[in-house]
């Protein structure tokens, strides 16, 4: 591992930890603007985290150790996931320990722990949220895996940095199979991150919430970690999307330290555009009933399958 690789590795994790709340704040700000509301500061998520970290920790009676462990596990998996996603540089030594399939597995691990923790107290909201979240999860996971499958077929590897590099060296012509899978990926991103139209991050209405229902019993530092992990998850998904569909601008194998520095503003621009797009999608769509979620995600899966078929038919 060269010093440059070490630097890009540390930068990937630190940047994710720092930028994730900012990105979420930016999405919220864009949403407020698009909806003609006065927008909260982009730092608002940070303020919320700071407040939560300084609050007392309340734990419900009858909670098992699993309840207290889950925030750390969820936060830890998201941070490890950030270490293998080539957001700014494809020279990530740690990325060799887990490829794109393992990344899907990591996301699944955090989801399972979150759901188990929500079931720990036996409260109606927690168990209902856990059930719904697992339902969305088992529908979204195959779609996400098919997306990664298509990208892996295109680049003959399942390692994310290598996928990114291969796609970067292609000419700028849009591959039709990638276009289909990009749509599928966007739909999965919305579902997995509890965004509209599957879940409303701003709602605490009992009958409709999914992600928030699982967090109802959390407070203080536990809640802070869970919220931070949710922001990290959104950031990670966005960066996976960039790695698969917009890899240009990241520092590659042969580039020097300057390329790494240059990759930072590129990522910022990508994130800002993605935030605007996300806010726009959320503004124009209405929340679906819970039982319409399978149709939504089946559509995502079909788009990914279409991408696959197009790839096989056109011979790559």
């Amino acid at each position: 591992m060269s010093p440059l690789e070490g630097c890009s590795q540390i930068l990937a994790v630190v940047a994710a930890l720092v930028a994730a709340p900012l990105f979420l704040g930016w999405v919220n700000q864009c949403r407020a603007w698009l909806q003609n509301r006065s927008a909260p500061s982009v730092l608002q998520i940070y303020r919320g985290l700071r407040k939560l970290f300084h609050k007392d920790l309340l734990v419900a009676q009858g909670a098992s150790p699993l309840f207290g462990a889950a925030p750390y596990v969820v936060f830890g998996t998201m941070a490890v996931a950030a270490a293998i996603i080539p957001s700014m540089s494809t020279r990530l030594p740690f990325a060799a320990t887990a490829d794109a399939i393992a990344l899907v597995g990591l996301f699944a691990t955090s989801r399972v722990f979150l759901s188990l923790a929500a079931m720990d107290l036996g409260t109606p909201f927690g168990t209902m949220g856990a059930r719904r979240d697992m339902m969305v999860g088992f529908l979204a996971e195959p779609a996400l895996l098919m997306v990664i499958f298509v990208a892996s077929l295109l680049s003959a590897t399942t390692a994310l940095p290598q996928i990114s590099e291969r796609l970067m060296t292609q000419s700028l012509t849009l591959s039709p199979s990638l276009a289909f899978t990009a749509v599928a990926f966007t739909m999965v991103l919305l579902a997995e991150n509890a965004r509209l139209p599957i879940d409303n991050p701003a709602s605490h209405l009992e009958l409709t919430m999914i992600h928030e229902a699982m967090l109802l019993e959390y407070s203080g530092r536990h809640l802070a970690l869970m919220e931070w992990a949710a922001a990290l998850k959104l950031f990670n998904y966005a960066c996976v999307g960039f790695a698969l569909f917009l890899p240009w601008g990241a520092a590659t194998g042969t580039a020097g330290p300057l390329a790494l520095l240059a990759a930072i503003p590129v990522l910022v621009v990508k994130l800002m555009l993605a935030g605007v797009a996300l806010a726009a999608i959320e503004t124009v769509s209405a929340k679906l009933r819970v039982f319409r979620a399978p149709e939504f995600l089946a559509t995502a899966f079909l788009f990914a399958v279409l991408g696959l078929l197009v790839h096989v038919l056109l011979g790559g």
Partner: protein
Amino acid sequence: MPATLGSPLPTIGILLCAWLAIGLLGAFWPARDGGTRVLFPSGALIGFGLAVTAIHALTVLPPDAPGWRLVLPLGLPNLPTHLALDALSAVYLAVLGGVAAGVSLYGAGYFRAPLALPTGSPPGLLCAQYHLFLASMGFVLLAADAYAFLVSWELMALSSYFLVVTDHRVEAIREAGYLYLVMAHVGALAILLAFAVLGAAAGAYSFEALRAAHFPPGVAGAAFVLGLIGFGGKAGLVPLHVWLPEAHPAAPSPVSALMSGVMLKMAVYGMLRLCFDLISGLAWWWGLIAVGIGLFSALYGIVFAAAQTDMKRLLAYSSIENLGIVFAALGLAMVFQGAGMPLAAALALLAVLYHSVNHAFMKSLLFLGTGSVLHATGQRSLGRLGGLIHRMPWVAWLTLVGALAIAGLPPLNGFVSEWLLLQAFLYSHEVPRAFVNMALPLGAGLVALVTALSGYVMVKFFGVVFLGRSREAGQGAVHDAAPVERIGLVWLATACVLLGLLPAQVVGLLERVAQQLRVGSLPDNGAPWWMLAPISGRQASYAPLVFLAAFVVFVLLTIGAVRLIRRTRAVRVAPWDGGFGPLDARMQDTAEGFGQPIRQLFEPFFAMRRQLPSPFDTAPTYRVTIGDRFWDLLYLPLAGLLRRSSSLLVGLQGTRLSAHLLYGFVTLVVLLGLVL
């Protein structure tokens, strides 16, 4: 290689005979407890020895050697018993020994408790049946001629039948046992015919002769189909699966663990032996049938598992799912081998072997966990359990390991085999056939769906049994597993963790099977010992040890940093009740509730009968029963046909002696006419 001084074959034979001896000792044990306290732990020791010997044999066996052989002058005249040990049987012997070690230790505690057997067989008899079952599975793996194989296979089926009907005074259990016996014999018949077809073409019944023979495509195909019926029925592939969710829950939990964990793997072993070793000249597209049936069984099994409310039935359906995945991988390996893609075929075969090993350990662990719950609470129904993590923490945390593993989550073992299978599927678009290369990659999507669903099922299973609040009052006397039971559980859980954390070592061992069967081998790419990179480091790599270490370091740093900000102890408060007064245990989501989205999404799979209350009922009841469509579509019509045809024959069965004499006379005349 003949049986020389260095051959491990006699050692393994002696170990299996030691199991038989323990069984005999148990049957004639003077004390009433049948020597459970002594005999089961010694059986576990033998299992451990067996696993060590088998793994050692696997490491010393040269990759291109055929293995060790031994001919015993036992059996029918001029038909000696052939035994052989090669890489394939060594892998499954290691599984048998390793799982048996854990289950027997657990059984030492489980079978000792008197309340386990209020209505069942005496402990001494149980001990005899149990060890006969273990030894017969060992002989299935060692047998090297069709005759010895079938005798061991039948011994395995019968001994497990008697174990299933341990509680034979319960009618439902007798019925389940009967169904199992019938299905096991339909399967055994198909296997017998498969060997008969091969043997008739080759002129001999020893595996050596079958291996050397070359079969015409028709014979090979017929043997494959018969083998798929026989072994697939044993593995619980749809539509021959109906016995599995009845028989596995009926048996005592250690027996369920062995049946699901090990006996189903014997079917995988038999199929591998048949398809990759004995039958030559098998057309590649037979593999597609295995892929199709396997994937359908996997989806069918997991969907039914999600709808179950009995914890042991849930696990039994999950076994159908896992064996479906194994058979799909097996079919994929056949397709790749036929298409001349040795690397992809080796990957798929490794997925078969790795998933067999994994499932053996995780499913045994889960079944033993349910055994402890059953012992402690007397309940199998998910609707009456809950909150057991507080009362039985050992069982709960160890079961969690099994549940996470079977859900295919990194860094545990279930993920590794799923990863290998998906890597193999990545080659499926290179199969040089139109349409096949488009349809096969979709199988990867199905595998992903099944894995994600198994995560759902495991959250349901663990969450409803161990988390939340106790759903039934009167669980005051709930106790954790006994110390010797804990050792057994810890052994199995450790195996799950190690199989997950050291995939490169395990794959290194399993690869010898692929080499021996001439399926293919993985390139030597100089990956470090902690990294699994079957093809090349740049193409796909997975190093669970490193990322687990990074995860642990990061979590520790987070805990430190959080404490640095503010150091407070947690304050215990009542959970939030939404402002409507205190919560009670009946407000929790139930197992039925967890099954509801699945029932709605996969409605065509189920034969559902709903009984809804009318608005005017004073005591409204709501009942929904979920049936298996294959009963209505296949089994009941078949049974009806049998009954009708036998009722036709009943008319012939008069009570008068003269009529029967007449039948005899007519038969004689007809036969004489045929002969002359």
